[in-house]
């Protein structure tokens, strides 16, 4: 399927796909950081919850719709994606209401530690409802698109293209929401200065609900795409959390656009590690891809803790 001598462009193509997943996850994490003001360690497991909710919905969407497909993927997959995003959005709002809001009296550290508990509970519930095995969505196998393979010599499947395209659509939609709508302006105002926003008449509690909905939906999209590209595993979200945090810190904590940029860079580096290893730039291979992301994160903390787009440390 992949030519023996792997073209450098192949790594770049893989990097674009992986970056899409990290960007989606990093945006949600960064939104929570900027508006709810704490490091949400449950974000990775929220991705898992989204991915498994989608998997659950495949059970009834698939018989309903049969094999009709668009863009090389069956129609039921898109509905399952929407279902997963909706479920994760609702779950994250409920989690905020039931668990985070009552702890609100304490500082962001109390919320941070609570979020660890939430992460473990999410994962335990996934284990209990779906078992511990890795699963698949059952999307039919696809070969690489022939003309891309012939012209560039790299293997790109239609599902890769769908993942990247949908990510671009979601990110663009978020950008338009933040810049062109009243809700977006309220969200930016709340992120900038919650007290000031409240004084000027913004119902910040509604903004916080919107933020959890958007963050949860994007996390689920990232989780579903990760499950589509690899496997749907109960630990998938937690395993990727470090990389997502690295992206958020690289971009600047709390900056949504920084998270996009950081996600792009970290996702790309993560996939380019084997290539750099071949070239002799770094002495480690793909088994240490996450470690390389970690080293970048530590370097950023040393040199510019506010990240690329952040304004204060």
């Amino acid at each position, binding site marked *: 399927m992949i030519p023996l001598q792997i073209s450098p462009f192949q790594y770049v193509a893989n990097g674009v796909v992986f970056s899409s997943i990290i960007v989606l996850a990093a945006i949600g994490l960064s939104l929570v950081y900027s508006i709810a003001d704490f490091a949400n360690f449950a974000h990775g497991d929220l991705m898992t919850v989204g991915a498994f909710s989608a998997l659950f919905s495949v059970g009834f969407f698939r018989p309903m719709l049969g094999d009709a497909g668009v863009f090389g993927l069956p129609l039921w997959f898109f509905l399952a994606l929407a279902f997963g995003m909706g479920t994760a959005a609702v779950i994250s709002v409920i989690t905020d209401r039931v668990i985070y809001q009552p702890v609100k009296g304490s500082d962001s550290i109390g919320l*941070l530690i609570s979020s*660890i*508990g939430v992460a*473990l509970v*999410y994962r*335990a519930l996934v*284990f209990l409802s779906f078992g511990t095995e890795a699963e698949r969505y059952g999307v039919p196998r696809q070969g690489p698109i022939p003309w891309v393979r012939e012209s560039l010599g790299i293997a790109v499947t239609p599902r890769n293209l769908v993942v990247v395209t949908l990510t671009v659509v979601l990110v663009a939609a978020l950008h338009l929401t933040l810049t062109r709508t009243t809700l977006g302006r309220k969200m930016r105002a709340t992120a900038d200065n919650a007290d000031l926003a409240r004084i000027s008449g913004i119902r910040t509690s509604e903004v916080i609900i919107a933020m959890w909905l958007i963050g949860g939906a994007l996390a689920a999209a990232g989780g579903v795409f990760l499950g589509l590209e690899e496997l749907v595993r109960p630990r998938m979200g937690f395993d990727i959390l470090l990389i997502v945090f690295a992206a958020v810190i690289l971009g600047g904590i709390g900056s949504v656009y920084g998270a996009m940029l950081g996600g792009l860079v970290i996702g790309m580096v993560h996939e380019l590690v084997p290539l750099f290893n071949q070239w002799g730039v770094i002495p480690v291979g793909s088994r240490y891809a*996450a470690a390389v992301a970690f080293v970048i994160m530590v370097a950023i903390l040393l040199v510019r*803790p506010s990240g690329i787009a952040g304004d204060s440390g």
Partner: protein
Amino acid sequence: MSAVSSWVSETLVRDATERRIFAVLGLITVLLVAGVFAGVIGPRFLLFQIALVGMYALLSLGLNVQWGYAGLINFSVAAFWGIGAYCAALLTAPNSPLGLGLHPVFGFLAAIVVSALIAVLIGIPTLRLREDYLAIASLGLAEVIRAIILNERRWTAGSSGISGIPNLMSWLPLTDAATTAAIVVVLIAVVYLFLRRVHRSPWGRVLRTIRSDEDLAKALGKDTYRFKMQAFVIGSVIMAVAGAFYAHLNLYIDPSDLVPLTTFYIWIAVILGGTGSNRGAVVGAAVVIAIREGTRFLNDIGFIQTLGIDLAPLRLLFVGGLIILIMRFRQDGLLPPKDELIWPAARDGSRSGGASPSSAAPDGGTAPNGGDDR
């Protein structure tokens, strides 16, 4: 005898909550001892569990220095523990990949040095920044260290683990189980007394100031970065010592216990016991081991096996739920620190003077003066 009883009333049963907690603990102890005499529990098993509780208590004391004293969020407890365990295993086991077979002392020394170095390395980029940066970076560090131990098979034997680790002080005229249990008791006593001493010192007071208001500590001219680094290193070294001890207790080590869940068990021990309270850390560790081993015990009961329930997810659910509930309802934990931070002499002095309304006075107690306050 009166000295002992006053010490008990001063330290263990100062208010109703504490009386209840220690009554439950006492009851469990009596049941365990009765179990040994009745032949239900093997003494060897009990001693092993005591040593295990002791190891968890050491880890909790280490985390308490970081989180309880200085407010540092360290999510790589399991990694520092693993560093200690692997230092001990690699240097002392004759059939480890290094094949050195050195005296255990070198294992402990290496554990201390390596863990201190890594703590400094991770502290340099994060301790000048907001608390959550250390939380994120330490979680990453834990994953990296686990990846290294799993992948560098030439040096660490990877997932197959290292066996043949020697017992500690096998020349003592006791069984191996009794020796390790005795060693951990001594270790805990040493660490406990050391921590109590430093916590009451000016150094400890600065740390407490940093925890409650770092800007204030800075305004008072304290180099808060240095103090936080010292607390971080001390805590990490204690964790590594616990790890080295575990290697000699279990006589076998593999990377499976280096998972983040181990770290969160210790977090529960500390926040359940009472953040900042060393007594709490020890009690919390005992509770956590009871949860862990208790649920493992349930697995062996035939009835539960027939139900076909896998207990690992339930344990995860329980741990997660417990963290949420403690943070919501009892952030102080079971045994929050009270007057243990104050020199006994200073406290007695202020009382006999009758001047300052001692805010640290025990709540419901009629505690007489004298005796050590712990």
